[in-house]
Structures are given as C-alpha cells and as structure tokens.
C-alpha cells in the first residue's frame, strides 16, 4: 500500500540553525501539506502546496518557514533559524485532490528538538 515517507525520523539542532525536513508523498498525489504537533498538544496545520505554489498557510507559517518541491518526488520544509518553540513532531501529508472530502494521508513524522 502506498505511503508517505519522511526523513529524518529524528533531528536535533541548535537554536538559530537551519533545518530541512524531507517528505516523499504518495506518488499520484498532487496536494502536499505540512502539520506540526507540539508535545501534548493537537495537530496543527502549517501549509498546503499545489502546482509548485503555496495554496494556503496558517499564522504559524511565518517567514522562517519555506516549502519546496525540488524534484518530482520530494517535498521539503525548511526552517531558516530554529527557535526553541519549533521543537515538535512535523508531519507531512498528501492527497489526490484538494480539500473538502479529499482524504489526507500522513507520514510517520520527524521529531525535531531544538536546543
């Protein structure tokens, strides 16, 4: 069964450093998403991406964040200068088409720890 994969599974970084989180969405999916989950809190939407453009973003997704689809299979989330409060699980998701009834499938997540 096709699945979303993410690398690395864990990342430890120093405050102020740049990190890139990587995702390989399900191959025939066209819509890609990033969510985060701070420990003990609910899953929060960050950004959605379609046709090489951001289609929607939340207030969390500020100028420190960027997304890219560098090739036909990868989808990345970059945090330019990490803060302590960026420590969280980051989940990538993908769907065949846009919102509404379309189901999003999630990857296993990257646990980011900023020291």
């Amino acid at each position: 069964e096709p699945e979303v994969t993410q690398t690395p599974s864990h990342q430890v970084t120093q405050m102020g450093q740049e990190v890139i989180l990587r995702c390989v969405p399900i191959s025939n999916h066209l819509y890609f998403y990033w969510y985060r989950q701070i420990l003990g809190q609910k899953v929060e939407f960050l950004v959605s991406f379609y046709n090489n453009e951001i289609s929607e973003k939340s207030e969390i997704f500020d100028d420190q964040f960027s997304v890219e689809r560098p090739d036909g299979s990868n989808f990345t989330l970059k945090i330019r200068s990490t803060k302590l409060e960026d420590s969280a699980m980051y989940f990538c998701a993908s769907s065949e088409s846009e919102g509404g009834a379309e189901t999003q499938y999630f990857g296993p997540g990257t646990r980011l720890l900023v020291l």
Partner: protein
Amino acid sequence: TQLLEQSPQFLSIQEGENLTVYCNSSSVFSSLQWYRQEPGEGPVLLVTVVTGGEVKKLKRLTFQFGDARKDSSLHITAAQPGDTGLYLCAGDPNSGYALNFGKGTSLLVTP
C-alpha cells in the same frame, strides 16, 4: 475555543466493553475524517464521512456523521487491547486544504 471538541478526553475500559466517542462542532463540515495516532507516530486514517447521516463500518468500529454535518461519533463494539490509542477527528469547515484537528480521545483498553 476549539473548532472540533472531542469527548471524552480520556477513556479507560476493559476488554469486551462497548464505547462511543464524540466529535462536535458549531460549524458545518463538508466531510470529517477520523484518524488513530500511536505515541510518536503519524495519524493513520480510519475513515472519511461525507454525507449527513452517513454510517460507515470498519470491522468493530462504526462511524456516524450527524445529519447537519456538524458532529460525528465513533462506536467501538467489544473493544480489544489493540484498540488502545488516540482517536482524532479532523475536518475543514471551509472545504479547503487545512485540516483542523480535535484534541482527541485517548482510549485505553485493558485485558
């Protein structure tokens, strides 16, 4: 204020018991999705409900979407220890891209 309120927050039952968990909102959703999440892992999709009043069954799990498409329930029959986990409902009232998640119901089924 939570867009999606899930109840109860925690539930501890014995194997063989039945249970129902709820996902409520004041907003109308074009669809709601139910996920199950294990500690340290990503949400795994269980079902998507789309039509008001719809009932979907997944083995011992029964999902219902309210007639007004503002709420949903998950009923588990004869719970087993393997059902232990965090059950999340999620949806976007704007029929867009951003899934709003509830805080979840943490279920513990003991043998």
